[in-house]
């Protein structure tokens, strides 16, 4: 497992046995991702980067591994957004968040 993050927070993950990589911007994160995708099965990435690289992340949906997981970093919740778009695309209706909107 590996994590790509934008701050010192990724250091905390090191204590849990995850290899941490710090990137300054989305470009750097993308470079890391490209390299790490071959070595790690599960890669966590902070929300901000995921949002900026969302187009790039789509290509990883074709195969089972590696898995890229957005990790909340206080800047919105991209993971939930992904979930929501996937659901809307597949089912055409909102079965989870519907009540919260109103």
């Amino acid at each position, binding site marked *: 497992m590996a994590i790509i993050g934008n701050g010192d927070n990724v250091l*905390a993950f090191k204590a849990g046995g995850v290899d941490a990589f710090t990137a300054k911007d989305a470009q750097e994160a993308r470079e890391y991702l490209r390299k790490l995708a071959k070595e790690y099965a599960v890669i966590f990435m902070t929300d901000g980067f995921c949002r900026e690289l969302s187009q790039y992340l789509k290509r990883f949906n074709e*195969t089972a*591994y590696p898995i890229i997981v957005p990790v909340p970093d206080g800047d919105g919740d991209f993971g939930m957004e992904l979930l929501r778009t996937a659901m809307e695309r597949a089912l055409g209706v909102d079965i989870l968040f519907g009540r919260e909107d109103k």
Partner: protein
Amino acid sequence: MARLNVNPTRMELKKLKNRHKTAVRGHKLLKDKSDEMIRRFSVYIKENKRLREQATAILKDALTQFANARALMGEAETENAFSMPSTSLELNLSTQSVMNVMVPDIEVKADHRGGMPYSYAQITSEADYSVRRITDAITILAQLAAVEKKVQMLADEIVRNKRRVNALEYVMIPQLEETIHYITSKLGEDERSALTRLMKVKSMINEKNGD
């Protein structure tokens, strides 16, 4: 609806009827597949939401503690304290087939070694707490990873399948039906015209033979 460009012969009719049968059958099967995928998808999506909420909560907690610990200790000490993993997480990676889509399946085996990866003397208690919470968070995140990927892949597959169902339902099958209808009426027409021609010829011959 456009009809297929084929010769109106008995041979073609037979072929088309077979294709029509296959298409209808395929359509039914795909529709069933779609229903089942959607059912499973909704199960996964609920699990995904639950896990993500859980992960977000724990992570937030852990990171707050981490920020506290960092504020209380020096840069170098923090680095030291957190660089050594306290637990080794073993992931059992495998793939699983959900409706013929190969999806990842992760089994997490956390191996808590008990103690903390540093001496207690120099580190604040916030760090202890933070390390413990982060381990929990990562365990959940690993599970979340598998479920989330399943959801994404299933969503793609459902969309693809829907397209196939629609192509069969609104293009292939009407086309085939129309062509079959066309050939049937054409053949019937030919038969009738042949019959009338024969009758006409017969009456002409009868006239000529001078009755």
